[in-house]
């Protein structure tokens, strides 16, 4: 009203720099700043969970931010607790939900992602490529390196396993967790072990840990599928050789989703008080295009991926999920 742009706070329950999830969200906010003329501020809450609640309350209580963006399932209960106290503040919760039945959360909009659909496509691609027999030294094995066995990552994995089995029945799917989002050395060690067991392609769902997986792929001369943002783009300039080893990345377009939500909010059309589920159909999940690796993938495999994508969008294929009660 006073002519200054509305201020948006983005509360990170951790730190930026994960190369995937939070960084992608931060990108979305920067985009919003440019496109929607909002003033945004990103606050890193650090890794101590006892400080998140007070951090969130502090933002809401300050009165400076009419809108607060935050993410992950971990923050769901906190938003649920804080939001009713601050009805004038709008909360956008991504990749997490509040229980609308149990709280007066009319000021909360939450969105969840059907990452299992992306995982499925990754599985089809990986298994198809391995079965095509063009990867030197690979056996009938694909791998997955996860950061931690949390539901979101298990969801990727569930889709990945199903996709691999559907594309290449009987293929072995290795799955292992590094127990950390930020230990690339361990990621590399695990990936080396999986490549050593003949994995042709590894899907890494491990945040910064995954960078070790990508290095291992380069060293082993095998392939890797990135996650959350286009990770080939990250290396395209700095180490092109590495970029060619990244077949694609399963995009979880948190940035686009947040941008969309903020735009809707500006237009007064944000569906507050409910959860939206976003997947392939909504364009929130997808595969990144990596021209360097495109030559590696035979047309038949590409066709299979495209077909699977279409069936999911059409609703003729339901991908298994790791979330209890199924993905909405």
């Amino acid at each position, binding site marked *: 009203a006073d002519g200054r742009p509305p201020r948006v706070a983005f509360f990170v329950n951790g*730190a930026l720099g994960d190369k995937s999830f939070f960084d992608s969200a931060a990108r979305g906010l920067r985009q919003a700043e440019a496109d929607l003329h909002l003033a945004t501020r990103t*606050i*890193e809450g*650090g*890794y*101590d*969970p*006892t*400080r998140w*609640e*007070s*951090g969130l*309350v*502090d*933002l809401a*209580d*300050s*009165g400076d931010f009419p809108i607060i963006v935050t993410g*992950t*399932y*971990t923050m*769901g*209960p906190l938003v649920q607790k804080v939001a009713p*106290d601050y009805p004038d503040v709008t909360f956008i919760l991504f990749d*997490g*939900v509040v229980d609308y039945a149990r709280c007066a959360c009319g000021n909360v909009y939450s969105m969840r992602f059907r990452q299992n659909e992306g995982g499925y496509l990754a599985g089809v691609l990986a298994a198809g490529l391995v079965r095509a027999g063009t990867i030197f030294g690979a056996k009938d094995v694909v791998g997955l390196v996860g950061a*931690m*066995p*949390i*539901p*979101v990552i298990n969801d990727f994995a569930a889709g990945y396993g199903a996709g691999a089995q559907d594309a290449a029945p009987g293929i072995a799917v290795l799955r292992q967790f590094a*127990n950390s989002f930020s230990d690339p050395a361990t990621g590399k060690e695990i990936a080396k072990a999986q490549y050593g067991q003949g994995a042709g392609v590894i899907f890494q769902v491990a945040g910064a840990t995954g960078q070790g997986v990508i290095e291992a792929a380069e060293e082993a001369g095998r392939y890797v599928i990135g996650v959350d943002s286009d990770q080939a783009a990250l290396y395209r300039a700095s180490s092109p050789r590495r970029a060619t080893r990244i077949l694609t990345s399963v995009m979880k377009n948190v940035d686009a989703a947040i941008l969309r939500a903020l735009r809707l909010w500006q237009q007064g059309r944000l569906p507050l008080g409910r959860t939206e589920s976003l997947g392939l159909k909504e364009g929130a999940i997808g595969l990144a295009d990596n021209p360097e690796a495109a030559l590696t993938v035979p047309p038949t495999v590409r066709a299979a991926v495209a077909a699977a994508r279409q069936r999911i969008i059409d609703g003729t294929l339901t991908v298994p999920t790791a*979330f*209890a*009660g199924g993905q909405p």
Partner: protein
Amino acid sequence: MTPSREGARIALAVGAALALGFAVMACVSDQPWAAFRALLTGPLPSVDRAADGQVVVHRLVRFGAWLQDATTLTLVGLAIGLPFRARQFSLGADGQLFMGALAAATVSLGLGETPTALPLAFLAAAVAGAGWGLVAGLLKTRFEANEIVTTLMLNVVAVQVYRLVVGRVLNDPTAGFITTPPLPDAATLAPLIARTTVTAMVLVAPVAAVAALFLLRRTTLGYEIDLAGANPWFAIRAGVPVARATALAFALGGVFAGLAGFHVSNALLKRLPIDLTPGIGLEGIVVALLARGRVGALPLAALGYAYLRVGAQAMERTTDVPREVVLVIQALIILFVVSDRLAPLALGLMRRVRTSIGGRPA
């Protein structure tokens, strides 16, 4: 050193650290003054007068965060400080805290909505922390295993046990992240101040410090711990049960770390996520050493240190100063405050400069 001189020394050190921190801020920030103000006044609530003349208190939450932080720090500081009296350098507060939190949550979830849940969870946390501390104590007294190593290693074990139990036994599959179900209301503490996380635990911390002080000054066990720390060979010849006192010092320290775990689980988070408060034990060491091993000074050191931590967070939230600068300033304060000779050196230098200026023949 007398308390007032010690106070002056600390003030000087903190001042120097802040000055250096300001220089760092000026390099990375467009609004160094605002940042500096946020750092210094951050933990205090802001009092405004609304249009209708009513007084509105904003940001009480920061004040709460300060007290909450000081509570945890006092408790982990005690966990380090007690074994320290027996000249044992325990780094084990982390592990004991995890065990305490785990025990408190397990008991709370097991008992459910019963009135006994709260006291029993409190007790369980204390016992679990003490037990985990006692392990390190017995390893030291029975096997002479270096306590720095064993406590570090026991921390790793405790964290993994914690993750195993939270992830595979207590896990709430409907949560969407790895966590226990919410603890029953009967087992948790309600905030004393609305919209903050300040609970009755804020009173427990000073009581704990007084109890520790009483234990050390007034009980035979405390005397034994002091003597075992000051000169174990002498203590043994004098007939003091040194091994028992040393092991108990670890266990008693563990009680406080366990209570810090209770604070985290049943007062702050009210459920336990798989990743918990990393490295708080190290902060406990810092607080214990800032207090120079004096238990009575511990709550003060904790309050001071927590003030700066919360001020730093406030600075980060309200200005463009990034999180890492906060870490840098925190590190500078630690370094400067423990540098005993810094103040005398600086004063001596100043004096020399002054005499060299004033002493020159006119």
